[in-house]
């Protein structure tokens, strides 16, 4: 057991910290989930890319630094601690990219990855449909073979597509075998949203931002070159990476460590006897952020040593999503009458609370995750 970072890792942290101190925008950018804010965030992404901080863990040829998982965790800790902007590219770089690295052809990798990393292509997810939320296997959007054009014709609708109104591309599952059911007969497609057969309608999210979109497909086209993995085997492609080492990238501990720090700062800012009853909850939330950090280090060590993660990732998702809600609830309790404000110096807490409330819902509701934990970690019977 060695719980210190190497000199190279510490140097990486030091260099990064200095760069962030010099470059993180102040005041903060407006929300990246609005058209105007999205554009400003893409500017920031280009700056990150230029400094080779956009995708530190990727190979150098695609704009990364070949950074280790440890360096990636350091990056995340420093990034969020510095109060740097949200990553509007995240669904591409954190969710699609690992799948492309694993399943994509070399041509796909070269066509997509660097453009994604520098913000030239922005990717949104196309999983959920009106009747396929928690029950993802209920997808009914279709991709029909178009031999004439060597590709596929898409029809149907995707929904709850985060930042779908601003992105250039979408990745998701479509039914390619109409005779198959549930998890079978779906294909993982990479779709250019800028084409005639596609209509994107922004949907206002809880916090007032147009962060969601509905995407309608009316004979839209995807060429064969944009099929990821095998035709009709899309479910496997989509699932294979969820438990992989990059699965931990959705919400790294760095975010919650930073929020816990901010919460303690907030508590210290208030009259010292204002809320003795909240001390215990503040401390527990801070401990939980530490626990997440060390549970991650434990997992990453296993990965680095050649192991892999499995259904344990469901525990991680429940833990961080509920910790995030708790951190913000404590802050709102500390703020008292100021909690409801969405302007002024404390507004980010109510904004953050609303964002945190999406955590137990998206990426598989926590109810689904708890089923997975019970069945696949504990071994309880499915039915």
């Amino acid at each position, binding site marked *: 057991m060695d719980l210190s970072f190497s000199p190279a890792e510490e140097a990486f942290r030091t260099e990064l910290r200095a760069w962030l101190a010099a470059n993180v925008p102040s005041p903060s950018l407006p929300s990246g989930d609005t058209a105007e804010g999205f554009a400003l965030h893409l500017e920031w992404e280009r700056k990150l890319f230029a400094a080779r901080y956009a995708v530190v863990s990727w190979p150098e040829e695609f704009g990364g630094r070949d950074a280790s998982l440890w360096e990636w965790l350091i990056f995340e800790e420093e990034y969020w601690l510095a109060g740097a902007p949200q990553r509007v590219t995240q669904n591409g770089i954190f969710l699609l990219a690992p799948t492309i690295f694993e399943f994509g052809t070399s041509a796909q990798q070269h066509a997509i990855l660097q453009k994604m990393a520098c913000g030239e292509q922005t990717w949104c997810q196309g999983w*959920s449909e009106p*009747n396929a*939320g*928690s*029950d993802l296997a*209920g997808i009914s959007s279709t991709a029909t073979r178009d031999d004439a054009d060597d590709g596929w014709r898409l029809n149907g609708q995707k*929904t*709850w597509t985060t930042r779908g109104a601003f992105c250039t591309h979408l990745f998701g599952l479509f039914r390619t075998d109409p005779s198959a059911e549930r998890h079978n007969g779906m294909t993982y497609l990479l779709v250019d949203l800028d084409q005639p057969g596609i209509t994107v309608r922004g*949907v*206002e*999210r*809880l916090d*007032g931002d147009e962060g*969601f979109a509905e995407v309608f497909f009316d004979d839209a086209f995807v060429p064969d070159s944009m099929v990821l993995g095998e035709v009709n085997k899309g479910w496997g492609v989509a699932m294979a990476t969820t438990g992989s080492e990059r699965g931990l990238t959705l919400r790294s501990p760095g975010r919650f460590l930073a929020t816990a720090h901010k919460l303690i700062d907030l508590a210290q800012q208030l009259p010292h*006897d204002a*809320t*003795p*009853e*909240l001390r215990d909850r503040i401390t527990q939330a801070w401990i939980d952020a530490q626990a997440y950090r060390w549970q991650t280090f434990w997992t990453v060590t296993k990965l680095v040593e050649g192991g892999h993660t499995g259904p344990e990732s469901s525990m991680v998702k429940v833990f961080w999503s509920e910790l995030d*809600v708790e951190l913000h609830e404590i802050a*709102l*309790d500390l*703020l*008292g*009458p*100021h*909690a*409801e*404000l*969405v*302007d*002024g110096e404390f*507004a980010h807490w*109510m904004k953050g609370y*609303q964002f945190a*409330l*999406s955590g*137990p*819902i*998206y990426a598989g*509701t*926590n*109810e689904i995750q*708890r089923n997975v934990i019970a069945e696949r970690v504990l071994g309880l019977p499915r039915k």
Partner: protein
Amino acid sequence: MKFSFTDDQDAFHDAVRDLLAQRCTAAKVRAAWSNRTGRTPDAWSALSEMGVLDALRPESDGGLGLNEVDVIRILEATGRVALPEPIVETMMVAAPLNLASVGQSASVTIPESPLAPWANSTDVVISLAADGLRAHAAAAITCTSRGSVDGARRLFQVALDDVAVASTHVAIAFRRGVLGYAAQLCGLSDTMLALTVEYAKERKQFGVPIGTFQAVKHQLANARIKLEFARPLVYRAAMSLATNDPAASMHTSMAKAVAGDAAMASAKASLQCHGAIGYTTEHDLHLYMKRAWALNAAWGDAAWHRRRISNVLLSDAQ
């Protein structure tokens, strides 16, 4: 002992409930989010005509001369529809103390917060301060707009001059306001749970309505239990105010604490059971949820009121 309402009280409540069902639909609350004042003038004028706003004003001053018990479920009904109006401020704080004239509306600030809801469209702004109670013609004060998470609840930071009026009434005015907010929170819980039950009956995943899943059932049952045990404390606190019970301050704090907790729990369970659709502003849930968040925070949140109670209960501590 008779812990229930009279037929007259029932009838008054039912009349107001029916009126609000017409005049304060979800569509009208939604419209208030984007109108100038955030309010629903149709509903307000109807309430005024029915005498609701002046229910607690002495008859000699042109009111109905009723008490807190007579109106507690009316306040709950205003919460149930998320009425975007200063009803608590006007009916519970201003009218009983004659701090606004018949037909006038009022906004109120409390010592802990300079935020006055709808203060740019009320006739009077009242400040409750530790050392006294002050009423100001709205025209005479300076309002700075602040944003509430609830888009219909227009907040203003007000700078007030110093004209003390009746310091002995500060405590009673504060309790009435707290009670009013507690009642509204109960009504909001009702509506959020009802919306969610309807959704869970209809929404299917894995081939069955999601309301058949124990995980959904138990979340909603838990919120419903909180509401079941909050409401009696709200009604009890109303009676304590009506009868000048020496423990009225404790009772109103208990009411606000439990009603706030129940509403926060109802909001959280409702959002979770709705999933992504509840996370959009296209669905009505958010109208009620955001009001619940705002009213829980205002006039002392649950933790704040528990602390007041702790200081009485655990006398030698802190």
